[in-house]
């Protein structure tokens, strides 16, 4: 299970403020905590910096990689020039977040994939928007896999995100995204599925609780990468435990190690936690 730590995202007010005042200490601390909690990539999203986005991305990528040995980043921006700056500043291979099937986005991002050879997140949306039904989103995912594979990207470097909608507005939204994960998995063995799953709980109370349960459901449908808050200890414990129960943890080693390190001693489920 590939964990992408989601916390360095400029849509979060404290992060945006820290970016605006170039508070390297605060941001490196955010990065370090997530890295030490078991992230494989740290997402860096600078979108809300707008005109100041590009230098911010370059600064932050360099800063985090200098501060934390071996840290790898997911370069996350709606602006292809910012993606380029982030990939350029990044040592070794980054994760590019993201390409879509929108014509313009493909034209802008595919050259970056050629040049920097990152791993790539592919979102199942195109010029017609974000289709609600599973077959259409699967078809977009399939098209993106073909575009990327056609450009020489190994299947193992492709992470398709089925884009989950809030169940508060559409009762079927959680199940539909699970169905797409499974379908992608069956049709394209070797390709990864990834999910920023917290959207599923939008508009509901106790969002963390919903996200934690949905994570386990997604595991059973083959999700093998996730964009989450790695400081959510119950989420992380659920992933470790779920993998063991699905036979993805040889000798239960991951589970037992987590147990000995105290990573399974998490707070009781949701009592009093109204975040």
């Amino acid at each position, binding site marked *: 299970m590939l964990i992408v730590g989601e916390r360095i995202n*400029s*849509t979060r007010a404290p992060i945006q403020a820290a970016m605006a005042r170039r508070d390297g200490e605060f941001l490196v601390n955010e990065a370090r905590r997530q890295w030490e909690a078991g992230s494989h990539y740290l997402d860096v999203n600078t*979108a*809300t910096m*707008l005109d100041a986005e590009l230098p911010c991305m370059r600064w932050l990528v360099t800063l985090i990689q200098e501060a934390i040995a071996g840290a790898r980043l997911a370069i996350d921006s*709606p602006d292809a020039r910012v993606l380029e700056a982030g990939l350029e500043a990044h040592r070794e291979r980054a994760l590019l977040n993201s390409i879509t099937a929108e014509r313009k986005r493909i034209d802008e991002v595919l050259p970056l994939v050629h040049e920097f050879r990152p791993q790539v997140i592919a979102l199942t*949306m195109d010029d017609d*928007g*974000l289709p609600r039904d599973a077959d259409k989103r699967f078809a977009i995912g399939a098209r993106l896999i073909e575009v990327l594979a056609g450009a020489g990207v190994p299947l193992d470097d492709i992470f398709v995100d089925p884009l989950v909608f*809030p*169940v*508060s*507005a559409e*009762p079927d939204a959680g199940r539909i995204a699970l169905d797409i994960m499974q379908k992608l998995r069956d049709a394209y063995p070797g390709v990864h599925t990834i999910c920023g799953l917290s959207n599923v709980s*939008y*508009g*509901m*109370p106790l969002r963390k609780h919903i996200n934690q349960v949905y994570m386990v459901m997604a595991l059973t449908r083959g999700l093998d990468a996730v964009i989450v808050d790695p400081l959510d200890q119950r989420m992380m414990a659920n992933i470790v435990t779920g993998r063991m129960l699905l036979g993805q943890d040889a000798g239960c080693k991951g589970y037992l190690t987590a147990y000995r390190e105290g990573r399974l001693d998490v707070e009781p489920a949701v009592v009093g936690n109204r975040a």
Partner: protein
Amino acid sequence: MIDLAQLRQHVIDGEQDEAVALTRGAMDAGCPPDAIFKRALFPAMDEVGRRMQRQEYFIPEVLLAARTMQACAELLRPLIVTDPALRPVGKVVACTVSGDLHDVGKNLVCLMLEGAGFSIVDLGNNCPPEQVVAAVREHAPDIVALSAMLTTTMLNMRRVVEALEAAGLRDRVFVMVGGAPLDAGYAREIHADFYSDDAPGAAARARQLVGAV
């Protein structure tokens, strides 16, 4: 005697079958449609809005109540046409702006506005400024309601306001804006008329603007 308080409660609880049956009963008994709206359906959505603001109600409950209200209103529609007391309090053109595909908030606002007596022209998602301008020309609304859920797309709200100005239509409509990344300061900055941080608030302000309070 028709129990409008009971109808109101069914709408609040999102019990569509019961609410529709009571509405039909009220119509059959000769209850005036405007009494059904003003003493049951609108007050029900008012209460739903209050509960949402107090975080006692969540989006699925608001949607259920709103659909129940719509089902009752649908029955009454043939009568509304002939009843001047039931003319909409105003007309709203609503959409999410260019690049934004998040429509949960916009849909909630539309439902609350409908529940407050407005007629709605919902342009859907991802609407370029030209489309909003064309809709204002065609429908002559009182209010244009714009939604954006991304810091990157909220910038396109300004383009809509500018397009309305360029088309000479800005003075004919109120522009209301909302969405997670916005605040009242941003609304002022782009010369929108008002901002609300939730759907019930948007409906309440809209009623004030058209003098329906």
